[in-house]
Structures are given as structure tokens and as C-alpha cells.
């Protein structure tokens, strides 16, 4: 799980460069104003690159928080 979070953190650093890393764990689409639908797509593509795997956009459509993304990635 730590490995997933570390990699996910790297994706967040690129997708949300203004966000302090200490806020990643609680970050979600409602609290991060830059997190719109475009940012979500960018984030999912970064995750695909970082985790070297295909990401199903629809499957991850509702994963709009750091925790939800980490859980979804952990499950898979």
C-alpha cells in the first residue's frame, strides 16, 4: 500500500503542483479547486504511466480523492 501511495503522490505532484504534499491524503475533487474533469483525465493518464498499466476511465470515474484512487489501485 505504501508503494501505491508513494507512486500516487508522484502523480499528484505533477497534476496538482500547487498542492502541498502533506495535503495529498485528504485531497479530493471538492477541496482541491484545480481538480476538474480535465485534471482528472490528466491524473488518470499519469497514473497509467506511473503504474505502467491500462486505466479504465469509466471504472475510475468516481475515484475523485487520493484515498479512493489508492484503494482502487490497491484492489487491482
Amino acid at each position: 500500500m505504501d508503494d501505491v501511495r508513494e507512486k500516487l503522490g508522484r502523480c499528484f505532484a505533477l497534476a496538482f503542483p500547487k498542492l502541498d504534499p502533506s495535503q495529498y491524503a485528504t485531497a479530493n475533487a471538492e477541496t482541491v479547486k484545480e481538480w476538474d474533469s480535465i485534471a482528472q483525465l490528466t491524473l488518470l493518464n499519469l497514473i497509467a504511466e506511473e503504474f505502467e498499466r491500462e486505466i479504465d476511465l469509466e471504472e475510475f470515474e468516481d475515484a475523485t480523492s487520493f484515498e479512493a484512487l489508492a484503494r482502487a489501485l490497491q484492489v487491482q
Partner: protein
Amino acid sequence: MRLSEALQVIGQAEGDAQRTVHLVCGFSPLHVETFLKAYLIQRSSGVRVNVATGLYGDLEGNLQRARETGGDGAIAVVEWSDLDSRLGLRASAGWRAETLNDILVQVDERRERLKDGLARLAAVMPVAVAGPALALPPLSILPPTQSGDFELHLNVAVTMLLQQVAQYPAITVLSSGSLSLLSPAESRHDVKMELHAGFPYTLKHAEVLAHQSVQCLFPLPPKKGLITDLDQTLWKGILGDVGTDAVSWSLEGKSQVHALYQQLLSSLAESGVLVAIASKNDPTLVEEALKRSDLLVEPSKIFPVEASWGPKSEAVSRILKVWNIGADSVVLVDDSPMELAEVGEQFPGLECLRFPSDDPAAVVALLGQIRERFGKKRVLEEDRIRLQSIRNTAERPAEIAGEPTADFLARLGAVMTLEAASSDARAFELVNKTNQFNLNGLRYTDAEWNAISQRPDGFLLTVAYEDRFGPLGRIAVLGGYYTKDTCHVDIWVMSCRAFSRQIEFQSIRQLFAKTGAPEIRFRFKATDRNGPLQSFFASFSHGVELKDGELRLGAEDFDRQCPQLFHKVNDKWMT
């Protein structure tokens, strides 16, 4: 470049965005925008760039908005759905026969409007245009292995659009062939992404499209000279072993790749590229071989020919001296990795390319690489006379060795012609490629150049030169503006071919005379390469070290230090 790398480049960009480039498309710009920004930042040496986008599904409107907003350039990406939305996957108007007929009518109308929109945009900024990259949906009743009237009509419409807009000087069209090499047709379309977010491309295609668009919009300055080896490069065979009649470049001799290479060299020479030979060979044999009437590159287009048994780097050094250009503007082509390494060590900036004579496919790829290094959109008069003027200079070595004497200069019959340069492509080219005699090393985009040429209190002029040894063409550019009693010069470049003729002194004398200014202020910046320009100013600095910023030169001081000048001045600038 991966998406994460692109975002890193964007995150590390510095300074305020000084350039705006429009991404004009009808789809969601998404990753094309990201990659475009990253490549533009790299091209701008790490400085932030603003990428402006438009509205979804409104390519025509976006063209107009880009024109009204203004900027430094635009990249227009035309997809099938921009010609008619029914050609995209997000439309639901049906694929009946009458619908297809109506699509063709609409496409022809839209093509005309897009052509006009692109032409109007190109009137205010340079534009790179990419045609449809995706496959059409299976709308017609034909099996996909066949092309019928519907598909062929659409292809003709797109080809006509691209062919028509390519005629405009400020428009470049991306090569579909070049795009296919790095982004094969079958791996471009991200159907799920198109349906989900209106972005139709895979990450890979977005990256390649952005990269090639930037290369089209802001091409790197082409290289100036090519030095070629002979044996196993210009021809097949070792001249010293087989003799002049047995070296070959033909289908019959199983050496056609050398014929292709010779044809490319001939074409390059015609476009103003300097071509020379550096070969470890017997000079007499080489001279004899170059007399063969079946050579596909005229020997008169090759100068100088350096054939000797010394180190190749020494031959290259002599060639560079005759050409009077820097090693980083030159490419060496040779079949020997050892020779390439030896030259590369002596001239780290010189690009060394191996001629793989035993691999025809690799040779064809090499020809493409060479064309890429020397590609240009137009051939100017200066390109045509460059080789002859270098030849003329080289053929009077005794008189021009070092600084020529006043007596020699007086007998040159030199004529300098000053002319306004507002829409002169040669002036733009000179400013963007000259290194050695360059006031500050600044480079300009088309839009910046247009703005400079329209400064209300500004001036921009070219200097052409001719003497009894022949014309050099337009070899210098001066630009600046006036304020009260002062003339400011922020652009001053002169081709290295024009050194040692006191053209720089006469140029400044004319500037003082024509403007009547008691003082000229130069926007100077020392660069790694502008030593000759610094030497000019050093003669007026009274031993004071030159510093970046504003250099002041008074008319009286200039007159005291200026050598005797002998040019006849033909003034077409202020008459």
C-alpha cells in the same frame, strides 16, 4: 516525451510568458495542449509560454478568435469532424445515403471557409496546419478495404485544402508521411477518450503531433554546409585500389544508394548549402575522378576539395576556414566511424553522420536525416550566389590574408546598397542565423519580426554588397528606432562572408549621416560567438571593457576612429 515529463518541463519553466501560441482545434485540447506547451518551453530555452485554446466544436470560430487575439503563432489541427460533425464518432445523425451526399456538399463549403479562416489568421501570425489523422468511421456501404466515391471525395477535399493553404508564405503544413513514421495510423485513435471526453487521440499521437507542430512552426535554423567523404560514401569502391573508372554509383554497379546521395547533394547545393569534400586520397586521382561526366552532382558545386593523407580533422579545419562558418553549422558524412570520431573530437559542435554503404535502407533514412538538417521553405538570391562569392574570396588569398590594405580596398570597386527591409525574408533569415557579427544574439519569431518592422519610429534596413570579385547579395541588417536626438540600434548583424571589407564602418557612417543623430546607442550583449562584433566596438572603447547593456557611440568619436572608406554607397533607404 511522456506526459509526466511534459508536466515536469511545464512545472520547471521560468519567467513570465512572453510568447502566446494558439492551439486551434475543434476537439478538447487536453494532452495536445500539455505536450505543446512543454515543447514550446523547450524551444524557448525554458521560458514559460502561453498556449491559448478555443471552444469545443468550433474550429472556424477558434480561427477567428485567434486572429483577433493576436499571438506569436498558431497550430491548427483539422479533423474530419471539423469538416462535418457527422464524420465524428460523437454524432448521431444517421449514415443513410442521402446523409452522405449532404456531408459531401457541407464538406466542400466548410473547406472553403476553413481556407479563408486559415489565410486570414496567417496574415497576422505564422500557422502550422495538420490535416485529419484519424480514420473515417465506416459510413459508406463499401467494405473498409475499398475506397469509393464518398471517401475519395473527402480525401480530395482535404488535399485541396492543405495544398491551397500551403501556398501562403506564413503557413506550413505538417507532413502526413513524417507523422506516420512516429505515430502509425492504427495507434492514433483513443475511441473511449473521444466518446468520454471529446479528446480523440492516444497519448502517443498527441505527443508526436505536438512535437512536429512545434518543429513546423518554429523550425531550427538549417545547417549551412556539408562535408562529404568520397570512397564508400560519394561512390562505391576505394579509388586508390580500383581506379577512377571502377568506382560506381548505379543500379548496374549495385551502388544506387550512392547515386541517390549524389542527387541529394546536388539538390542541397542548388538550395544554397555549401558542399565540400574531405577525403584521404591521392589528390591527382580525386581530380581525375571528379572529371567523370556521369557524376550526378556537378563538381563545380563542390568547394573546396580537400584530398590528402593527413588527419581528416585538418582537412575539415581548412574547409571551415574557407567557408568562414562555425563547426556547429556543418555536417560531416563519412563511412568510417574512426574518421567521424577523430573529427568529432576536434570539433565537438560539428555533427558527424555515418554513411552506412552496406545497408540501403539505412542510407535512405540517412538521406531523410540530412534533408531535415538543411530543409528550408524558400531559396533566396543570396543562396544562389553564396558558393561563387566564397570561391571568389578564396581565389585571391594573397590579397585578403589578414586585414587587406587601404590600397587594396580602394581598388575593389565596392558598392554598398542600403534598402528598407520591412518585408524582406532575407533580413529575417540573416538576423535569426548570424552568430559572429551579431549585436546581441537575439532571435525573433515571425510575429515579433512583424512588430519590429512596423515600429512607428523604427527603421529596418538591409545592406547589399558588390565588388569587382562579384556580388555578395544582402549581407547585413540594421534595425532600431529614434528618440529625441538619439538613434537606438537593437538589431545589427552581418554575414561572416562580408568580413574584412569595412562594411561595418560604412554602415555606421551612413546611419550617422542619414539620421543626423549625434549619438547612436547600441543594445549590446556579449555572446559566446560574437567576438568579431566585440572587436568592432573595442576599437571605440578606449580600452574600457565592454559590458552588456547600452553602448554609446558619438558621431565625433566615430569619425576620429573610423578608417578611410572607399565604398560607393547606393542609398535606396532614405531617398
